[in-house]
């Protein structure tokens, strides 16, 4: 049936990563940069999930329908999904920290343009 879903996911994820990077580098507004990082991370998460996909696989729940011996071949790899859950939590907290910095930066300079924050150099 044509394109496996994992390929769709991979392409989507990689595209999202590029979009995220573009967001990080093309915008001067700190909030947009933070959104860029979020999109980049989301892209990576989708790629990670995609790597665990097994074509025509089933849910990795070992029971009578899916004995242990068969699980390796026909179940979707659950570990990337588990990793992604952790990564989402971490990404969430990092985004929170970045946003709190954005608030403080705005308080300091009344602007969110990253051009205003180039004090230390050379």
């Amino acid at each position, binding site marked *: 049936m044509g394109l496996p879903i994992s390929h769709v996911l991979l392409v989507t994820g990689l595209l999202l990563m590029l979009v995220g*990077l573009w967001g*990080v*580098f093309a915008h*001067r507004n*700190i909030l947009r*940069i933070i959104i860029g*990082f979020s999109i*980049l*991370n989301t892209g*990576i998460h989708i*790629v*990670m999930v995609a*790597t*665990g996909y097994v074509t025509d696989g089933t849910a990795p729940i070992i029971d009578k329908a899916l004995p242990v011996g068969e699980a390796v071949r026909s179940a979707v790899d659950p*570990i*990337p999904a588990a*990793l992604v859950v*952790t*990564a989402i939590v*971490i990404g969430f*907290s*990092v985004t929170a*920290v*970045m946003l709190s*910095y*954005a608030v*403080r*930066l705005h308080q*300091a*300079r009344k602007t969110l343009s*990253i*051009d205003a*924050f*180039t*004090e*230390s*150099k*050379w």
Partner: protein
Amino acid sequence: MVEGLIHPLNIFLLGLGGGFLIPLLYRLSKRLPAVAFWAALAGIAALSAICFWRVLEGGDAIEIETAGSLPPLAISLRFGVAEGYFAFLVNLVAVLGAWQLWRALRESYTTLLLYLILVMGINGMIMTRDLFNLFVFLEIVSVATYGLFGLGRSPAALAASFKYIMATVLASSLFLLGAALLYHVTGTLSIDEMIVRRELIAGPVGATALILVLACLVIELKPYPANGWGLDVYETAPAGVAAIVSVGVSAGVFFALLKLLPLFEPHLTLIAVSAAITFLAANLIGLRQANVQRMLGCSSVAQMGLLTMALALLSQSGVAELHMAFVIGGLFANHLFAKAGLFWLAGALGRERIRDWNVLSTGAPFVMVFAALLVAIAGLPPFPGFWAKWELVMRLAASGDHVWIAVVLLGSLLEAAYMFRWFCRAVGGQRSEDATVPALMRWRRGLMPPAACVALLLAGGVVAAGEAGAASAWLFAPLAAGAVLLAAEGLPGRGKCVLMLLLVSAVGFWLLQGVGGISGLFGALFLAGGVVIASAALYRDDARHGYYPLMAVLLLSMIALLRATTSLEFFFCWEMVTLASSFLLALSPPARRYVLQFFLFSLAAAFLLLAGFGLVAATLGTTSLSAYATAGPAAAPAFVLLAIGCLIKIGVIGVHVWLPNAHATADGDLSAIFSPLVTKVPAFGLFMVAYLATRSQVGLELAHVVGWIGMLTAAGAALLALHETDMKRMLAYSSLSQTGYIVAAIALMSHLGWVTALYLVANHLMVKGILFLTATAIIYRTGLRRLEDCGGLARRMPLTFVVSVAALVSMSGLPPLAGFGGKWLLLTAMLQKEWYGPLALGAFATLIGLLYMFRFGHALFLGPPKRELTDVREAPAALLVPQFVLLAGILLLSFFPKLFMVPVSAAIDPQFASTLVWQGMSLELIYAYWDPTRAIVIAVVIAALGWLALWLIYRGGRRPGQVPGVARFYQFYRAMLAPLQKAPVERFWGGVAIAVERGAGAARRVYTGDGQTYALQVLYYVIALYFVAIEIPKW
């Protein structure tokens, strides 16, 4: 029960439990979080200490399995010797850091929590054996760091934190992707399993995944040029936070790299090259920094580069694990404590700009801690970095990585340059030395943690010396003597001086037990000459803080150097001499502006020696000095390096710019130690090199070049001395000129040459000792330094006059005094060897020498008496007594040369191969055989003709109507020598300094301050790494 508590896993229990408990306790009482924080932090440190002790005592590595399953199904951690070492040291620094940062930490319980989580996260990065878990700990550390950065309130600090966050989030995103892809290709997240299955990491996905993980770790270590975000944070964060990021977080990342290194085996060269670029560039950029913390940041980045480079190179050449552990462990501990200590000091002083640092008013403890940490960071003895760097150079030499040795030494030199420039500026303020007196025992707030670092570094240095097989009592005796005198620093000045003389005599005598041959002769000269000249310090009754301990270290290190049997011991003592003399120089306020020059040239010389020793050790397979005699022609390059090192330290013409200024501006009695005595240390080194070169039949043709260098130095320095008007600077140039003769005599590579060299060494030591003390006495009594300002002092200071004239006669090589025995012999020996060029130079130098020495005596003592000098008194007895003792030595040497010559001949004889000309002949025989009368007559005639010629030129050239006179005669020739002042040599070294500064200026243009640019640099760096790794797979 207790046994169950002592388990490394409880580190996480304490970290996380403490973290959760702190907010709860805050609800109960505002004081409780602090108690919980310290309990948890101390618990973490104690646990790591105990567990480290256990695994060190032969216990197996503690393998920690979680969730009731085995890896790869569950996360596993390991606490072995390496993990224990890193974790324990980081936790120790964390405890000290919390102490230092306490005022800021206690303000809010969230910072306590963050600090605790940060420490736990670093422990996790060190202990985990699971790739994804490593990512989690990396993020825990990162988030905690971001939070702690919030302690910095300024907009610049906020901006820098945001740049840091952008760069590290980008890096960790790559790590996440890389880890997931590595799992995809290997089917495991367990690092150990992954290493076993590493051949599965192939193809585009595997290779990319590997590079992504590597790139993240490299980026987290802040590689040049993608490290502007790191420097900004080091600059603006509170010092305590910068310290923990610099040493703690970096330690975690470095350990992650260490444990993943087997995976990166194909890319070791890439890692080493990237680290080397970082090491050099960061140290170069450090030269241009004006902000203390940013400069420390440069050094920090550079040191992590050095560590990474050492790790990659040593694993590439398959060095035994023990050596590897020694180098990495030593460099790591050294940087950890020294850098943390320096950051904390910066925090304690609270001055951002280097130019605002004026530490003399902060008290002696502060200055001492500051100096010790700088010495440590520069990799100098006795700290662990010294031993580790030595071992690193030895290992690199053994595997033939000569370019890498050059990188290590060049980077270290640059680092020492800006670190010690900082020190020189900090102590070079206008405050008088007395400002330190009331503050002598004042312990500034915040000084305890850095002082603890120094103590730990010292302990580490002793341990490392033991591991390197050099922990002998005699090697550390000079330092111990210094410590004793430091403890007695409260005594009055003269009391300290007497104590120092007694201590040096006793310890020096003990050190010389069993030392024979040339070393024994030098030892006797150093000990006797050192004690006699150093006793002149009794003429001052001020406290001279720090002077006597350093003087004891200097004199005893010089003597200990002669006892060295391995190149490591030799180098240790050599560096101690360098350090002690540099710090002594820094004690003289007028000399402070020259300390840096002095130190850097000395260090460059030392590094050449280090490289030379490395090459010899690689050829011979041993560091034993006695084995050098068996070296074949393969060791020739090493001997060249050793010889150049000695020649730089001697200050031969071309590299002399650092020497006269330092010797002329040091305290009077200190220059009397430096110029006559300390310059003999490299002369001894050259002796050893020449001796070994002779024995090993390498590079004899090199001797001719050295002979030329020696005589060029003798002639050039003599001209400079003639041009000089400052009496001490003239003496300094004169010393250089005399040392030139010694160099040439050594280069003769014959029995006669060497007897002459030793004779000149002894004679010059005594003569120049007298003359420098004369200058000291005159400056002390009149306050004048310029020759023209004095005059007619013979009547006022008759004893000084008599002793000086005797010294001048002896130095001029006029009969009947000792210099005569040396100099004519040297010239005739050159004739014998058909070295006509050096011979002519020597004759010329001797003529010029006569001129300036006559001028010295004439301008000071004869000539028209100056009215304002009529009530000048004779020099103090404390200065006269050593002078007369030295004069007695000269007379002894002159009229009973046998007393000296017999032991000299005996010392040299057995060391010569039979091919050399004067084997076995005593000096009396030489005299008898040679009949020096003819040579002397010829020389005297030449000298007289030269005088006559000079006088006639002067008569012809002087302006009409001028009355001829001695003073005018000299003025006439001084004017002719004026171009020397702007000699190309000075311009050359000035140009080198400017070029380096410009290079530093250009290298730091990448740091635009823009967060996006920094993030883009990170991305480019990763892409560059990727393409290099793919294009050159064997890198």
